[in-house]
Each structure stands twice: as structure tokens, then as C-alpha cells.
């Protein structure tokens, strides 16, 4: 029920260039990806597009996702560092990577879906508790990171945000049935 990879430090892994590399796709990773690929976007369409590019074998998208996923354990890593690692990858590695990266991202963020589809589950209480207690971040920051901007939440879940921001967030937020994709792209069910 809970997106364990998102909420714990247990990473997913990918294999290339003869090594196994840990990937953690958390809020930080998604923010870094957003800053790189869609600094102006308030919806999460860019993430869907990015994942589609990864699926199609786009090396820039693959490299960006690997970089973001590796950042938690290697905060000083740059995009070019990861690109240099990819230079050591075999062609078979390059072909196998998209599926591995997407599996890791979907473990964390849920499956990007069209309207009417189903995404993975999500637990607000655990997510918020992890954010605050484990990562030492503020609750306000959680909501900012989750919803990105007020503009982006003005199309359906604004009421939810309003209630959540007024305190007692974890008890007022829906307990399950939302993936991070739902939250960030605000496509409630």
C-alpha cells in the first residue's frame, strides 16, 4: 500500500558499466528533475513526457533520471559525471537501462497515466512523517514540494490543500488511493 521506496532510504538499483548503482526517487529527485527539464511548468506533464523519452531510449532523459536518482547518496554528482559513467556502458547496457530506470521511478512515483487510468497507492501520513522526522524538513515545505505552486492546485484539489494547510494536515489528507503523480499533477479520483 505504501510507496516504500519513496518513504525509506532503500534504493532501487540499476546495472550498467559493470556495476550496480543505487537510485532513490524521492521528492528531492523529482524537484531536481523539474528544475532541469521543466523549471516553468506547474503541471506534471513534463514528467510523463520525460518517462516516455526514457522508454524510447533518449540518452539525455536517461542520464537526467539516473543523475536525479543518484543524488540522494551522492549530492555533489553532476549530470556530466553520470554522462561520463554512461560512456563506459555497453550498447547492451544502454538498451537495458530504460526498463530499469522506469521500474525504479514507477516504484517511487506510481505509474504515469492518462485520465481514467489507475496509479499506485499513496499514504499521506507516512509521507509527511518521513519528510518531517526522517529528513528534518518542515511541514510547509512538504506541501510546497508536493503541490509545487498554488496555481497548480487551483484546478480541483485546492480545497484539499486549503484544509491541509490549516493544520492537522495528516489527518485531513486522504489516507490512500493517491500516487505521487496524482498529487503533483492533481488528478484526483
Amino acid at each position: 500500500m505504501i510507496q516504500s521506496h519513496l518513504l525509506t532510504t532503500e534504493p532501487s538499483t540499476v546495472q550498467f558499466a559493470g556495476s550496480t548503482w543505487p537510485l532513490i526517487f524521492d521528492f528531492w529527485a523529482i524537484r531536481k528533475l523539474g528544475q532541469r527539464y521543466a523549471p516553468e511548468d506547474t503541471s506534471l506533464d513534463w514528467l510523463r513526457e520525460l518517462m516516455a523519452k526514457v522508454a524510447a531510449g533518449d540518452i539525455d532523459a536517461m542520464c537526467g533520471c539516473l543523475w536525479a536518482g543518484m543524488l540522494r547518496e551522492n549530492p555533489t554528482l553532476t549530470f556530466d559525471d553520470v554522462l561520463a559513467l554512461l560512456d563506459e556502458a555497453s550498447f547492451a547496457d544502454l538498451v537495458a537501462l530504460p526498463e530499469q530506470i522506469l521500474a525504479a521511478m514507477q516504484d517511487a512515483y506510481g505509474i504515469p497515466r492518462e485520465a481514467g487510468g489507475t496509479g499506485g497507492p499513496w499514504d499521506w501520513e507516512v509521507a509527511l512523517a518521513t519528510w518531517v522526522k526522517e529528513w528534518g524538513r518542515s511541514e510547509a515545505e512538504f506541501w510546497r514540494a508536493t503541490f509545487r505552486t498554488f496555481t497548480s492546485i487551483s484546478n480541483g484539489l485546492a480545497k484539499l490543500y486549503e484544509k491541509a494547510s490549516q493544520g492537522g494536515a495528516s489527518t485531513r489528507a486522504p489516507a490512500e488511493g493517491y500516487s505521487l503523480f496524482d498529487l503533483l499533477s492533481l488528478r484526483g479520483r
Partner: protein
Amino acid sequence: MTTTPAKTATSCELGGHVWDLKYTATALRHLQMIFGSLEQFATQLLKENMGQGLSLKTQAILIWAGQKAVEPKLRLRWVERFLRTADPRVRMLLVTWATADFARAVFELAAARIDAANPPVGQDDEDGEGL
């Protein structure tokens, strides 16, 4: 069986510059960002007489991308100027070399995709034993 990209290129001095074209991730990323489909670009190069029939700009991009892994600060403009002023035989050799190595990378990627889509028969047999 696929080869490792890093092992497909050899360095060579042409026109007073040491070239070491490598069509690994760095180069393929640049070419993908500029031309989109790597397969279509490779086809275009092969159809245009191993790249000889393409514009100087396109030839320069192909060579610049291949050289970036070993010369990260190399500027496209420098490669364009090099090609414009180099002995035509040097330009022809360099473009042919780059086209051949890039096309090989694209073919190797395609071969790896076929390998991935068709796992060895023995693996299926093993899976079947448990049934």
C-alpha cells in the same frame, strides 16, 4: 554479441589534430538532441555517400559529437573552420571515419535491442522446467 562503445574507436592524427572519435553515450546524446532519431540520421549519412553529400555544418556536428568525449571543451565552430580549411582529402577521410563509426554504434544498438527482445533459447527451456 555486442561490443563496448569505448573500444570501437582509435585515435588518429589528421590535418595536424589528433582525432579520437567515440560514439558512446556523450556523442549519441548530442546527436539525438540535434537530429532526433539516430537510426534516421545514420540512414541519411549512408545514403549521402557516407556523409560526403551532407552540408559542412552537419558533417561538423557529427565529428564534433564524436570528439566531445575526449575533448569536452571542443567548440563546434572550431570543427567547422577546420573542415572548411582542411585538405579536402582530410575532410573526406574524417567524415567517412565518423560516419562509419557512428553507423556501427547505431547497428550495435539495434543488435543489442534484438538480443534483448530474443533471449537465448536455453533460458526459455529453464523456465519451462518448473512447469
